[in-house]
């Protein structure tokens, strides 16, 4: 295990990450624990895209999941208050389909956690999600940071359900959907 990188843009070879996978009942779970590192994000996106390709036949589904994975991981790196983040991908068998959840957990700052909570509540209340997305684009076009477009994009473009849990400083955001599985 190597030491933590000093900067989230450090060489990913210097980042610590640990991968685990296991099957439990009708679920398959894999977890990746990683030190916040932006350069790790596209590597993981490509890795999980290959994995998603083994499970789902439709490239559109793979693209939606890849987008969600990328945006969630980047969020976890950008808003990390110090400490490792954890990506968890869980697949659950359903008749003719798979339920998939992509969950990211990381320690974060209270203001970021509050912002996530507000955004997800606003999204949930919005009568038309696409209009909500357009409104957010207009509202934040001139803001340099923290627009919430990443999470909204997962919902509006990726068409995935979003939820979150908070325990102290640890926040977990989950993007989930049910999709037809690749015929075996």
């Amino acid at each position, binding site marked *: 295990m190597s030491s933590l990188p000093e900067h989230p*843009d450090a060489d990913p070879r210097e980042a610590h990450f640990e991968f685990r996978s296991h099957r439990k009942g009708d679920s398959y779970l894999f977890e990746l624990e990683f030190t916040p590192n*932006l*350069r790790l994000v596209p590597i993981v996106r490509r890795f999980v895209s290959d994995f998603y390709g083994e499970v789902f036949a439709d490239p559109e589904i793979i693209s*939606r999941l890849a*987008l969600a994975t990328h945006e969630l991981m980047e969020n976890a*790196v950008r808003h990390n208050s110090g400490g490792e983040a954890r990506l968890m991908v869980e697949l659950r068998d359903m008749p003719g389909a798979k339920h998939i959840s992509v969950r990211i957990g990381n320690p974060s700052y209270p203001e970021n956690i509050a912002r996530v909570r507000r955004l997800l509540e606003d999204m949930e209340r919005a009568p038309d999600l696409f209009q909500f997305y357009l409104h957010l*684009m207009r509202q934040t076009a001139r803001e340099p940071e923290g627009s919430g*477009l*990443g999470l909204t994009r997962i919902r509006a*473009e990726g068409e995935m359900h979003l939820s979150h849990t908070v325990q102290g400083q640890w926040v977990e955001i989950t993007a989930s959907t049910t999709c037809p599985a690749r015929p075996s």
Partner: protein
Amino acid sequence: MTNALDIPAIKEASFEASVTSEDKGVRLDLRGSAELQVSDLLGPFLSRVHQEALRLGVREVTVDLLKLEFMNSSCFKRLVTWLSALREVEGQQPPYAVRFLSSSRVRWQKASLQALSCFAPGSVTVEARDVA
């Protein structure tokens, strides 16, 4: 490296952006994977393109995404900011049109460009090609 428009290209390990003059206007080529690390470069780059397009009075800016594997939300937002600036230019009509060349097989491009088309109707057109 510069081009005829004197806008330096972006050349990073995983992402490149360049701009060239065309008969009808200006052409942007985005290649690779546009992620958080390049969004701070992409913003000023697009701002320069906008200023040059206004200065030259071009009628169209073409943005070729055919070789763009992925774009994250930070870089997507740079496109939003650019189109927002275009909408704010005074006048009855937008001074120039933005035409995106995209792949109909790449889902994120379809979804993101649909959003941009609705964000800036009358300014954005999308030409989707059946290429991987």
